[in-house]
């Protein structure tokens, strides 16, 4: 049900663009105003969210240690999974962010008669998540050719690598195929694996469908309903140079694509997609395990009521003396008002 709602929501968004930019002919709204608004909201929303996180301090240094600590000189430390220096943390974060290190550990528990538990290797999520994110990144960077003139060599090279199979005209991008497959996997595992289905929210399906919608509309535009790429570039260059104009010959499919991208940008800062920013700030990953080497200061540390030794001795002095335990004050100096 949650998946279907989310799917309909994406359909509705497509319909909005179809009616608005297609039938209604509101090209300026869909080609200029909404994209500008979306980019502004994305940037502002993203920054504000990160600032909001940053405002809360990290009172305690709480890394999750995943290997041997820095200890005695003859014990080999795991410098990446249990870093004690900033460089170690940088490496740990690098592996986490670039290679999804933690997800790579994933296993699946199995119950067998015996009773016996087994932990099967389960790297599919890691693999498809990696494929999904990297194809997304590549596609994003590839699009930079529409926002630059002359197009830097890097983007051109990326494009030719991505299209190196040279299947069809225009040649098929590998990432187009990969992202569709990967996003489909991510969707299917959400509905097929009972536990994941149980915890999934509409907010988990919606961005997946939205991204699939963006990808499919892009593919459609490139391979099937051909759009005049020269006009599109004129439009996109107009946007980045702040001289927006709507050239002739840009098809409705383009406006649908751009509208869905705009929705994604607006949705991003308010959603779980902020994991992109959050992962950098996660205190269990981005802190060194140098806890006993360097005192971490808690900015809101406040004094608390403690039970002092004096109060303790006052209560037990007699028993302590009797047991031969040393005391600070001898028995006779005991205060009169003791309960």
């Amino acid at each position, binding site marked *: 049900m949650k998946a279907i709602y989310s799917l309909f929501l994406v359909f509705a968004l497509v319909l909005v663009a179809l009616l608005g930019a297609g039938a209604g002919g509101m090209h300026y709204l869909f080609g200029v105003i909404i994209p500008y608004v979306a980019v502004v909201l994305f940037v502002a929303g993203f920054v504000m969210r990160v600032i909001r996180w940053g405002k*809360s301090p990290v*009172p305690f240094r709480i890394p999750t240690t995943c290997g041997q600590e820095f200890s005695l000189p003859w014990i080999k430390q795991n410098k990446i999974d249990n870093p004690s220096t900033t460089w170690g943390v940088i490496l740990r974060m690098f592996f986490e962010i670039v290679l999804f290190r933690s997800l790579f550990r994933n296993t699946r*528990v199995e119950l067998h008669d015996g*009773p016996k538990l087994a932990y099967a290797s389960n790297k599919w999520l890691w693999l498809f998540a990696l494929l999904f994110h990297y194809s997304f990144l590549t596609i994003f960077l590839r699009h930079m050719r529409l926002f630059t003139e002359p197009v830097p060599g890097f983007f051109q090279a990326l494009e030719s690598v991505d299209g190196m199979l040279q299947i069809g005209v225009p040649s098929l991008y590998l990432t187009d195929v990969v992202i569709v497959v990967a996003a489909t996997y991510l969707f299917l595992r959400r509905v097929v694996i009972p536990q994941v289905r149980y915890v999934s929210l509409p*907010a988990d399906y919606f961005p997946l469908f939205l991204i699939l919608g963006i990808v499919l509309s892009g593919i459609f535009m490139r391979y099937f309903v051909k759009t005049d790429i020269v006009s599109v570039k004129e439009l996109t260059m107009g946007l980045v140079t702040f001289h927006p104009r709507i050239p002739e010959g840009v098809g409705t499919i383009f406006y649908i694509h751009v509208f869905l991208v705009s929705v994604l940008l607006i949705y991003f800062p308010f959603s779980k997609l902020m994991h992109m920013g959050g992962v950098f700030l996660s205190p269990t990953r981005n802190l060194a395990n140098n806890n006993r*080497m360097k005192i971490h*200061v808690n900015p809101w540390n406040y004094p*608390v009521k403690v039970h002092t030794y004096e109060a303790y001795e006052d*209560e037990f002095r007699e*028993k302590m003396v009797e047991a031969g335990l040393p005391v600070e004050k001898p028995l006779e100096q005991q205060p009169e008002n003791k309960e």
Partner: protein
Amino acid sequence: MATPKPQELFASINHRPPKKDWMDVPVEIKPGRYCYAANPKSLEIVGFPHAREWNPLDDDWKLPENWKEIIIQGIKERLERFRSFKIFMDICVRCGACADKCHFFIGSGDPKNMPVLRAELLRSIYRGEFTRAGKILGRFAGARDLTPEVIKEWWYYFFQCTECRRCSVFCPYGIDTAEITIIGRELLNLLGLNIDWIATPVANCYRTGNHLGIQPHAFKDMIDFFCDDIEEITGIRPEPSFNKKGADILFITPSGDVFADPGTYTCMGYLMLFHYLKEEYGLEVTWSTYASEGGNFGFFTSHEMMKRLNAKMYMEAKRLGVKWILGGECGHMWRVIHQYMATMQHDTMGDLDFLEEPVSPITGTRFENARATKMVHIVEFTADLIKHGKLKLDKSRNDNLIMTFHDSCNPSRGMGLLEEPRYIIKNTCNHFYEMPENTIREQTFCCGGGAGLNAGENEELRMMGGLPRANAVKYVHEKYGVNMLGCICAIDRAVLPNLMDYWVPGVQVTGIHELVGNALLLPGEQERETNLRGEPLPGKEDM
């Protein structure tokens, strides 16, 4: 309600969640899976709010009138104080990687024991009260209303989490359910909803210095009793000192080691080691009756209570004028010492200049990793002694033991203390086998009774939660004949024997310093006939 038989319990585990959406499944408080409500007197001793008699099985939990306001305000304050909390509320993508990493989910199949869902119990309220999307879109955005039912659900499930952090190892963003549970329990505590197995030890610890409420003279008596036993076995009587000013080192260990088997044998191991070091090298170690608790159940109620109980360690070290502090084998104790203590006490203790940078006076080793907070773990200390050949050990006295080692949650995932205990085991025992790699080191499984859940009334829950650990022991028990499970945690020593009897009969539990005590050749000792447990030594069975 009697705990079901192992086979029955195992057969009843079903990892398939129900059809109905979790928000529509009301919480059902099941006997055997919850701990009794806190005794109001214990809450009053430490000044916790809304102390009262209440019963989790009753419909009416007698919540304070403004309970909702308290919770909302409580969440708000904690969002402002803890970046971890704020981020963990916002960025989970519900990928489900954590789902089957939790021992309580594996053993119970209760979907709300999946770490992701345990966190969603709180996140759904956060969304409804603190995010615009949640306020407008409600359930579509994953939000729900805050009702007394939600509070009951929190209480039930936040006391079915042992804060072991295993899920956090697998989370691609490092989301740590322990953080969520810690905050969740703090919120519940604001409404006077605690469990007695935590609240009473906290009250005891505050007043008498230890969880068990052992008063100073009794504490000394108990240690003396161990010295009697040691004398009987070895002919040598250790003479430990208490509250001694000017000693070299203050030693603090969980009071469980003083109180219950098999922790008591570990405690005897400490006593023998310290006696040895005093005789051979003149090292003076003192015990404190005031700071006679290494553990910190305050950690399971609130950050503030943790600080209040922990304060005794540095205060006592300062009063006694020792050089540095040595800590015994304990799990959550070490999470607190390693990741919280110096930070918490910084306002009153500053940079701890009254202590020295820890150096082993025997080997000259500088404990670099503890140079600022000046507290060393005893397995670090002992491993160093062994490495430098400073202990005379007879491994063969442990030849009856076929060992495996259970990494305790907190030393492994909150410190990374992995090799030191193994090094000691290998130097005190001849037979040691590791459990499968998915169940040890940073992937270790909780004993099922951590974070204050080792009560009697929730035995079924503990047997469920302990299943993954027990099952890994069963594997090495069957494959290598393992008959002894080593650990460096007092809660483990209390929880695991019962767990082993249930799932893997024939395996006993030991602390690492019990092994040291057995292997250690005390100067002038008589020929030992038995080990510290009074069992005949290998080769002496027929005598």
